[in-house]
């Protein structure tokens, strides 16, 4: 196989459960999650709150314990020391206001990973921080200011610069846009696209907003109640959604029609009570095409197209489709 087809990060059968303090109850945050991340590619995780998106991200970086295989360059991630792991994987938080230490200047915040992970000294830090601030569009003469002197969008830029500091291979971005104003959101989307081109990063981009995912992902993983219901390359997913939940989600986004103003529909699904029902399919209670077997047995993931997997009984598996790797999708993206 060509080296480029090797995934940087391979996640298979990841289960995450939180033990509740009350009566030792277990809350399942993710179950049997598998997907791959390739170089220079963005994987979008989409789902409602409670779908397990953040738990998966936390498990990848090691803030939460999970069961299952997470392979970084083919090696089990737990064999890496935590410092090595942080050198390869970095994280961008949802709320930039709380992810920057209010008492640390921008320079100090960004140089922290440089000192701890790469062992830079003062002058090296200075050069690198200036470089990074240039890359994210923060004037370098403000680098000794404290976070509260910046606007929300600027703070998120600073957080992005900190994540980029150690030249990681993968950046996990946990809803980095949802606390920002729309005009700032657009700026940050632009920045992410720009950075990916520049640094050939792999992104795992978490969002509840399909519109944002559209601009930032190559491959989309749809999560519902901790289970992957469908995963496919972006265009494939948008053109041929197979799972009823994905269809519902997509129906919420009626394409841009600027002449008639913006008309958007949002799914009517209340996902908040969607905890794993005993046995059956996660979407069973809300599904319009549910059958008897959906209630009793969990469906398995089936391949329905190139790199397109669906977890549903009502979708016919396509056994004979070519195992076309993602170059196709990539070529599509570049065109």
């Amino acid at each position, binding site marked *: 196989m060509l080296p480029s087809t090797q995934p940087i990060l391979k996640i298979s059968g990841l289960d995450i459960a939180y033990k509740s303090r009350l009566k030792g109850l277990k809350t399942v945050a993710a179950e049997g999650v598998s997907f791959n991340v390739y170089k220079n590619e963005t994987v979008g995780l989409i789902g*409602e*709150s409670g779908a397990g998106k953040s738990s998966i991200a936390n498990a990848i970086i090691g803030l939460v314990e999970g069961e299952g295989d997470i392979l970084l360059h083919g090696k089990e991630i737990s064999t890496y020391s935590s410092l090595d792991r942080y050198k390869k994987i970095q994280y961008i938080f949802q709320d930039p206001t709380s992810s920057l230490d209010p008492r640390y200047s921008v320079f100090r915040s960004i140089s922290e990973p440089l000192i701890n992970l790469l062992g830079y000294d003062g002058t090296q830090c200075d050069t690198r921080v200036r470089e990074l601030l240039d890359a994210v569009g923060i004037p370098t003469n403000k680098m000794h200011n404290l976070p509260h002197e910046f*606007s*929300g*969008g*600027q703070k998120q830029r600073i957080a992005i610069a900190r994540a980029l500091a150690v030249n990681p291979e993968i950046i996990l971005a946990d809803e980095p846009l949802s606390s920002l*104003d*729309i*005009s*700032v*959101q*657009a*700026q940050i*989307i*632009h920045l992410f*696209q720009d950075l990916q081109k520049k640094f050939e990063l792999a992104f795992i981009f978490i969002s*509840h*907003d*399909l*519109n*944002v*995912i*559209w*601009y930032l992902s190559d491959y989309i993983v749809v999560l519902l109640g901790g289970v992957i219901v469908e995963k496919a390359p972006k265009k494939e997913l*948008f053109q041929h959604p197979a799972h009823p939940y994905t269809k519902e989600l*997509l129906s*919420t*986004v009626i*394409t*841009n029609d*600027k*002449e*008639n*103003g*913006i*008309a*958007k*529909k*949002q*799914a*009517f*699904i*209340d*996902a*908040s*009570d969607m905890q794993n029902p005993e046995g059956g399919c996660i979407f069973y209670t809300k599904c319009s095409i549910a059958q008897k077997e959906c209630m009793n047995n969990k469906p398995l993931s089936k391949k329905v197209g190139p790199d397109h997997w669906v977890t549903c009984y009502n979708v016919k598996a396509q056994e004979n489709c070519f195992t076309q790797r993602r170059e196709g999708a990539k070529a599509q*993206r570049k065109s």
Partner: protein
Amino acid sequence: MPLLTIKNLTTSFKESDGFIPILVDLSYSIDTGEVLGIVGESGSGKTMSVKTVLGLCSDKDYRIQSGSILFSGNDLLALNGKYLRSIRGREITMIFQDSLSALNPYLTIRTQLLEALPNANLLKEEKLHKIIETLQWVGFADAEDKISSYPFELSGGMRQRVLTAMALLPDPKLLIADEPTSSIDATLSKQILSLFKKINEEKNISIIFISHNFSHVASVSNRILVMYGGRAVEVDTADGVLAKPAHPYTRALLDSIPLAGSSGTTLPFIPGDPPDLREIGINACPFYPRCRFVTDECKSSFPDKNTRNTKEFFCYHPLNPS
């Protein structure tokens, strides 16, 4: 006559080294039975304008420098506290952004809803009956059971409904909703939005709907007011703002909304940062540092009101000239 009219309202915060302008010469009005959407970035003054209406800015450093707020013909700024109280919470009610912090965590829903009911000469049973009725109306299927639960036992969407019920109990004439959809899940917000539509259509209550989310505002409002840097920059019917924006800021804001399935992979964006009114000054157009069409007059003076059909806007270089 409009229900609520804000005229030339100018306010600011007193800082140790001068004043920070908050609202600058802001005027808008809302008619009975109308839904007015206010769109703007954080810091544009959209929340402060309605808080000023309700007199909720009790900070001692907040100054109302000039202007008037007329509600059914009475100037709210000239009224004394007693009259203001008789209007605030009775005729004008408000729904806050964060449903968890807007409810007292130690009191049941029932107690809090009873408090919201004005001291009408009703028996307790009648009051309870009314509360349950209202809860059912806003979409509580099992209102009798849920009424004695505490806020933390309800989901975010349900709490938002409780707040809405609370705001509806006094039979207000005007309901102000401050970012009611921004702290709940995207899929639930549609339900809340349709609830607001229902309130407006069935109860004929005027609504001021504040959000930074253009699509949410567009889906409920008859008219949309776009605010930037403490000023109103454009007011028009919802269709007028969306389809034929005149102000460059409105246009840029609409363009920067991400839309899945759109053909391009790059999203236009507005360069620059939110305005700092202390730097820009209150005489210039606050958008000039980020505007493509900026000329010298934009920097020296704020344009007068222009009108075009139903549209009112403030710009020297309007788009889509007819």
